[in-house]
């Protein structure tokens, strides 16, 4: 059995810098695996101790093609890594990413289960895993809170509003898991060293099964920092009792208490 985990390598949104004109820059940002995808890596690794091989798949521009990316992904449990590295994936939208990842899965072959996180830390559109599943023509579910393999099918729990469904789905299947599905590990030195010995292959968009989409489905007109509602920014000082009394006075003035 082969499980693939889709991981996104993305900039840390906390490192985003905002210019005085509202422009934004990630030039000095750290990059890492989308934190939601770390949950999917953990789920895959825990399932695979029973059954077989875990292949991680990462797609992006040449920025992802570093030993740091490889070690970061492989130290979290997968047996090997497939990277789709192509500068035509710059600012890729969900359609481009899904088409590249589905093409990689087709080329890997005989994949039984595709896992990904709920969304990416940078865009959080929660779309790529779903679109990969649909492009493969597989049953696809989002908001999956637990996964168990039962032979040729898998049993999952899925939350939809105020209900939790327990479902049995025949493999192959694509699942987007929530943070409830596993607690991601923090890799230790031994796992990081072992990661360096695990195999990685690098493909371009031209190496994939079906031709991958190379254009966005929408044109980005602008990306600007969100302007915040202007707050009063009044600070109350003095002893805790004095400050509390002043705050209660202000809240009364606002008719809030």
């Amino acid at each position, binding site marked *: 059995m082969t499980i693939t985990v889709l991981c996104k390598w993305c900039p840390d949104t906390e490192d985003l810098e905002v210019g005085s004109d509202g422009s934004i820059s990630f030039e000095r940002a750290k990059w890492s695996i989308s934190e939601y995808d770390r949950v999917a890596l953990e789920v895959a690794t825990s399932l695979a101790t029973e059954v077989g091989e875990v292949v991680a798949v990462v797609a992006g521009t040449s920025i992802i093609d570093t030993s740091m990316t490889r070690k970061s992904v492989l130290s979290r449990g997968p047996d090997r890594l497939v990277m789709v590295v192509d500068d035509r994936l710059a600012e890729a939208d969900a359609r481009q990413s899904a088409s590249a990842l589905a093409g990689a899965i087709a080329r890997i072959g005989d994949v039984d289960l595709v896992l990904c996180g709920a969304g990416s830390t940078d865009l959080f559109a929660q779309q790529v895993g779903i679109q990969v599943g649909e492009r493969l023509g597989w049953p696809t579910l989002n908001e999956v809170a637990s996964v168990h393999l039962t032979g040729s099918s898998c049993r999952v729990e899925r939350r939809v509003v*105020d209900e939790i469904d327990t479902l049995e789905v025949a493999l192959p299947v694509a699942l987007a898991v929530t943070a409830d599905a596993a607690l991601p590990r923090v890799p230790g030195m031994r796992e990081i060293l072992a990661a360096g010995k695990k195999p990685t292959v690098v493909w371009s968009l031209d190496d994939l099964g079906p031709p991958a989409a190379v254009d966005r489905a929408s044109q980005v007109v602008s990306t600007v920092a969100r302007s915040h509602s202007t707050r009063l920014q009044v600070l109350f000082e003095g002893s805790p009792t004095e400050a*509390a009394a002043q705050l209660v006075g202000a809240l009364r003035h606002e008719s809030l208490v």
Partner: protein
Amino acid sequence: MTTTRPTWAIIDSATDVGVLLGAARQLSDVVVALVIGPRHLVEQASSSGFSETRWLGEPAATVGSEDYAAAIAELALRETPTAALMASSTRNRLLAGRLAARLDTSALTDVSDLRTEDDTVVVTHSLYGGAALRTERLLSAIGVITISAGAFAAFGSGPSWPGPIVEASCAVTPPPISLLERRSEPRSAGTLPQAKVVVGAGRGVGSRDDLGVVEELAQALGGQMACTRPLAEGLNWMGRDQYLGVSGLSIAPDLYVAVGVSGQMQHMVGVDQARVIVAINNDKAAPVFAESDYGIVGDLHQVVPALVDALKAVS
């Protein structure tokens, strides 16, 4: 400016009817409702002001709106609407993704603004943990769009003008998925989005026991408890349905009190619609103070009890 092509609103819940119509009217004067659900939902939609209401059918227990993707995609390819709009629920996010893959487009999600320019759809949505807003112009023929909760005003022409209902039930092949069990588990945050006063705890609350101090403040204010993401995921001090921010809940209470919250964008985007924000934090440089109306710099173990006493004194 709107286009002459119709826009579709896919409706599977009574709460979304007016808002979806309001959003769709930003694109077209002709808005067609595609309803997945019971007859009363179809009747509600038909009397809400849509140009036409189509009833795609009432799904069986094991089928969700997401399973209508193939049928809706086929219909869309035949009729080429400007876009298919839906709410941002779990099922609709799945429907949007499946529909987008079938229409070879990229779904535009959590859209907070919609318009047409030169007959093409232009949308705005947030990204990077709520830190930025992106405007995009659709290049594909048909848009697949989920709308951000609360971003659009409901449109209602009153219940006196029922429009035509077209029975358009479509064949849905049930997915190879069997439902073994369905249990009800309401999120404890059930009423958090409606609460007038919310007190949020952040990592500055040093331990699980210290949450009691914050709860006393919530009680004194007659409000509800919420938290930042680390308290719900990782520390597990509070429920996953109680955290506010980009991947959690967004709320718009009259008063939000942030206790021990540093003020990271990912959290603040979930509360920036609050009328008044108060921050209590021992770090004067914490970014939360720039996002607040009133603040007290100090140890929450001293400030919060003092605040509870002061509130009791005036009540």
